[in-house]
């Protein structure tokens, strides 16, 4: 039961970056491999506000999320926008380079030593033989609120519908009056906020270190691919499945091999159901 609970927590942590990956892929049609480093940078920004300036973590995380949202818009303007017409492979390679740069900015600023947020220590509590600490409960609460907000945005608000429309058919979106550049800016802003919150949750669960985001990269992509790239609901389900299965795998294989689970999942999904659980089959037009 404890392993299952830990798996759910790992999955919940991944839901937000997986959702960011799937949103960006849906609207911009390329896999952004810089998401790991973006989480790292945002987590260090929250660390600076929290541990160095003494702000409460919730405020620091909120400011870091807003800052990362705006930073992502700026990054897109400088890095991806000039390459937009060159296709997905070019954008993907650019994201790899960007990830490398961002991660090393964090390393340059804070070194390789592991660090932690300043949070009040509290005794963990037990429920049905499962030990839960306050950070884990915060993780579940924050991720649930973020997912609910994303659900409302994508299904109830005009901008969310516009994002889904651009993901579905960009040319038709233009002749339905949707200004794609505005939708792209909003997508980056929301993805940046999700990544920042995801980065802070990872920092609360583990420790802050430069490769903290990249360590989750394969699992996050496995979650997004399992759910179906472009499907927000799929990202949520995929993250929970990958998190739980990765954690349960430690019962039968050495923990060092846990990273193999998402890799196997990606291979199996791409062979048997490339569109994922909730994605639409790809049709070349």
């Amino acid at each position, binding site marked *: 039961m404890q392993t299952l609970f830990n798996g759910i927590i790992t999955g919940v942590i991944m839901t937000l970056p997986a959702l960011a990956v799937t949103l960006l892929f849906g609207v911009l049609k390329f896999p952004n491999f810089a998401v790991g480093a973006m989480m790292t940078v945002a987590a260090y920004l929250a660390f600076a506000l929290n541990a160095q300036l003494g702000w409460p973590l919730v405020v620091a995380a909120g400011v870091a999320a807003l800052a990362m949202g705006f930073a992502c818009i700026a990054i897109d303007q400088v890095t991806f926008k000039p390459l937009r017409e060159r296709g997905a492979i070019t954008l993907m390679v650019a994201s790899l380079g960007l990830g490398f740069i961002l991660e090393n900015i964090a390393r340059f600023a804070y070194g390789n030593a592991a660090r932690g947020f300043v949070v009040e220590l509290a005794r963990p509590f037990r429920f049905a033989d499962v030990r839960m600490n306050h950070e884990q409960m915060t993780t579940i609460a924050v991720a649930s609120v973020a997912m609910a907000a994303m659900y409302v945005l994508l299904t109830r608000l*005009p901008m969310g519908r*516009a994002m889904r429309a651009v*993901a*579905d058919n960009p040319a*038709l979106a*233009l*002749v*339905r*009056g949707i200004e794609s550049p505005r939708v792209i800016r909003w997508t980056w802003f929301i993805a940046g906020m999700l990544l920042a919150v995801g980065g802070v949750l990872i920092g609360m669960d583990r420790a802050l270190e430069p490769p903290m985001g990249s360590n989750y990269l394969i699992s996050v992509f496995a979650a997004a691919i399992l759910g179906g790239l472009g499907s927000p609901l799929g990202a949520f389900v995929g993250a929970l499945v990958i998190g739980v299965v990765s954690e349960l795998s430690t019962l039968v294989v050495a923990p060092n091999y846990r990273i193999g689970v998402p890799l196997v999942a990606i291979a199996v999904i791409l062979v048997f159901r490339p569109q994922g659980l909730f994605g639409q089959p790809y049709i070349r037009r």
Partner: protein
Amino acid sequence: MTNVLNVAGLHAGYGAGDILKGIDVALEKGRIVTMIGPNGSGKSTFIKTLAGLLPARQGTIELEGERLNDLSAPKRVRAGVSYVPQEYNVFRNLTVLENLKIAREFMGVNGSGPGLAEELFPDLRSHYKKQAGNLSGGQRQMLAFACALAVRPRVLMLDEPSAGLSPILMSAVFDKVKQVNAMGVSILMVEQNAREALRISDTCIVLAGGRVRSCGPAEVVLGLDLKNLYLGADAL
């Protein structure tokens, strides 16, 4: 009668070469104009250029005196030029209601009164919660029409509205075109099913090799051999 749309000396295309090589067309207010021509003559390129999906390399496009050349596709929609593409003309992963909401939310009102969608397509109400990708071909075409009419456009452009439809559905689509036109919307239609389209049209434009080969009353074209018209043996 005044012209709602004026196109003069239009050049457009993909890559290095021009597909449209100097098109001059005028659409009279309240009329149905059908553009016909052999495959590859540039019909779809023409309509996409008017919609703003392809840039005009030369020439001018004017909507009741307002120059459209420099407007993006979304701004042209808000100016009153609505376009129904030939295929992939609905958001397949969104519901019928969401497709209609997007049209209402983003196409904007151009000052000519409320939208026509609910008036003309009451049947869509029973499919509101259905994913648009799960609709039949005819229902999808009606939804695409309804979205294009969610705000009352000044010009409605249709790219092959009857493509892939059965003869019964084709006739239903052309009936709707006629109804929309009767409500004061000028229509520019590109169609392969030339004879069916010309029966409801006022004017016919024959396009061949990226140029206007002929232009005249639709009823006159109906009496001619289209093959000869395309090849230039007959003229209007």
